């Protein structure tokens, strides 16, 4: 059997097992609550594996190793930021968000600020961020399948979208939870197992340090490969901007936030998040090693501009023979697990919002959710097939900066600051989102200026996030009479432990 044959076999196995594990969950999915939040009965261990499985996307599985290979140590800020983002989430958001009792982020916004306007705007942002994040998943799937089996670049995306849609349509969140928990462990195994073989070969070759070799490129040679500062110019600003976008953007991602409603209570939400921190830390030890070894054994990938496929190709190159082909098939299968799980989580989150805020009037409950899921998948799939060229890591980075400048201030101030008003929230989200979205769009279209202004536009989070926070606070202070009538009662609901008998006001719907 050929190398491509093994890969096709591995990918097919992932699809089949995903559908089978999902089918196991279909049996339990009956009520609307099952579909939206798995009836809020998922225990921390299972839930944490599911969150880990959902969160580790193509950008983590393929992108990190590729970026480290091409650009060096500075790119380690991405996995560090994606993990630290969970710490920030744990500290500021986890328990209160669960205690809010809301299904989706717009539910939270409406019940906290008692305003339909905030609800509509946050629903719009959730769908926008979700699509922005789904599109690169489908694109990545196409590229990965094309590079290992030589099919057309659109086939991988269509396959992933189909499997996701089948699982979400039949089982909703209940079924997805099982699938994602399984996929976390699959992804970990798929990276760890080949690495054991490759580490043995590397030690056998004399354990040469990846930093000591010169790869014939401008950006990543010698000293600059080891430096933890990003880029050649304005390096301190760019590095801190990446840090702010990833540390604060995590809590604004729709598929991350929706997971907190599946916990039984606030304390469980905290413990789940702690568990997730451990699982993410464990996983992120692995991809950088692929990047480092790739520098020694596959440096030509950088010159070819195919650094992102280092995880897929490195095992076959280093181990060789049938064993190497099998190990490469394993990492390819892991990559598809990454595409599937992240797309599933995003689809559930976006479908929940679409069905409640757009279709809720015409269909009821489960039917609306299923119709929402179809829309949630088809639009970004269409975008992914139509547009090409925006890199996976670039689009994901855009989503983080955008989320950090819009939904992060809404959540943080909504939870911790009683005097937030609906006018303040809307003004902050519009200004933060407008500036972050506009500047990244300018960079992507290539109309950004040079020098300092260019650096500010390429990584906008360091100025758009403080701007969004300041606008929200300023506009709220200027409209003190619009402080929600039940703000004090809502604060009781968000912050008091469930064991205390208190009047917490009416939970959202």
């Amino acid at each position, binding site marked *: 059997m050929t190398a491509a044959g093994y890969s096709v076999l591995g990918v097919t196995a992932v699809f089949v097992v995903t559908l089978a594990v999902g089918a196991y969950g279909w049996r339990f999915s009956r009520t609307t609550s099952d579909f939206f939040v798995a009836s809020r009965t998922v225990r921390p261990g299972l839930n944490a594996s599911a969150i880990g499985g959902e969160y580790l996307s193509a950008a983590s599985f393929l992108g990190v190793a590729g970026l480290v290979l091409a650009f060096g140590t500075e790119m380690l800020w991405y996995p*560090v930021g994606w993990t*630290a983002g969970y710490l920030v989430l744990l*500290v500021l958001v986890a328990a209160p968000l669960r205690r809010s009792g809301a299904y989706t982020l717009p539910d939270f916004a409406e019940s906290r600020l008692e305003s339909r306007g905030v609800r509509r705007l946050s629903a719009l942002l959730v769908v926008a961020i979700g699509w922005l994040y789904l599109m690169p998943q489908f694109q990545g799937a196409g590229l990965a399948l094309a590079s290992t089996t030589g099919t057309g670049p659109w086939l991988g995306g269509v396959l992933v979208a189909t499997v996701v849609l089948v699982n979400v349509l039949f089982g909703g969140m209940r079924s997805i939870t099982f699938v994602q928990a399984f996929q976390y462990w699959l992804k970990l195994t798929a990276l760890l197992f080949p690495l054991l073989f490759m580490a043995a070969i590397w030690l056998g070759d004399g354990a040469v340090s990846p930093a000591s070799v010169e790869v014939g490129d401008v950006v990543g040679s010698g*000293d600059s490969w080891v430096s*933890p500062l990003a880029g050649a110019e304005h390096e*301190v600003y760019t590095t801190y901007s990446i840090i702010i976008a990833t540390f604060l953007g995590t809590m604004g991602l729709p598929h991350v936030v929706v997971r907190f409603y599946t916990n039984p209570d606030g304390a469980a939400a*905290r413990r789940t998040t702690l568990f997730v921190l451990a699982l993410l830390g464990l996983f*992120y030890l692995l991809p950088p090693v692929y990047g480092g070894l790739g520098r020694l054994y596959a440096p030509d990938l950088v010159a070819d501009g195919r650094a992102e496929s280092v995880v897929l190709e490195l095992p076959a190159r280093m181990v060789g023979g049938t064993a190497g082909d099998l190990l490469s098939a394993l990492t390819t299968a892991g990559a598809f697990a990454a595409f599937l799980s992240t797309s599933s989580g995003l689809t559930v989150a976006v479908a929940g919002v679409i069905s409640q805020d757009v279709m809720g009037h015409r269909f009821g409950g489960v039917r609306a959710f299923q119709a929402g899921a179809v829309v949630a998948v088809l639009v970004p799939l269409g975008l992914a097939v139509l547009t090409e060229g925006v890199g996976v890591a670039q689009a994901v980075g855009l989503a983080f900066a955008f989320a950090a400048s819009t939904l992060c201030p809404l959540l943080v101030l909504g939870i911790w600051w009683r005097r937030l008003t609906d006018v303040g929230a809307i003004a902050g989200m519009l200004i933060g989102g407008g500036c972050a979205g506009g500047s990244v769009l300018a960079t992507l279209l290539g109309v950004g200026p040079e020098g300092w202004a260019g650096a500010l536009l390429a990584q906008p989070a360091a100025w758009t996030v403080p701007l969004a926070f300041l606008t929200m606070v300023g506009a709220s202070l200027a409209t003190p009479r619009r402080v929600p009538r039940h703000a*004090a009662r809502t604060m009781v609901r968000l*912050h008091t432990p469930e064991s205390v008998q208190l009047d917490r006001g009416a939970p959202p719907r």
Partner: protein
Amino acid sequence: MSESSPRRVRVTSPRTSAARAQRVPAAREIDAQTRLGEVYMSSLLRSQLRLALLALATLAVFVGGIPLVFWLFPDLSAVEVLAVPLPWFLLAFAVYPFLLLVGWLYVRAAERNERAFTDVLDRT
């Protein structure tokens, strides 16, 4: 959901009320949004917020400080720990146990704050 079910109504004989001591539980102070109830709530909120800011400050200093330190002292990049360059050692390995430790300490302290709040409400 249990919150939406009608409140249980206690039916008692009027004679028993005279014998019982008059005291207002803290939970009812919070429900009625009295000054005292506000004090209970804001003390919980403040202790949790202070804890959260402490955790974030730890993160900002020890992880957020890394780029600054390497920018001020670029020679540190050449230092090796266990045959690995220092920046690589910090960002690829050491940072994850540190994040987990901060998270673990935070969860413990946050649950302790909540227990203290519950105890105060039970005692009154």
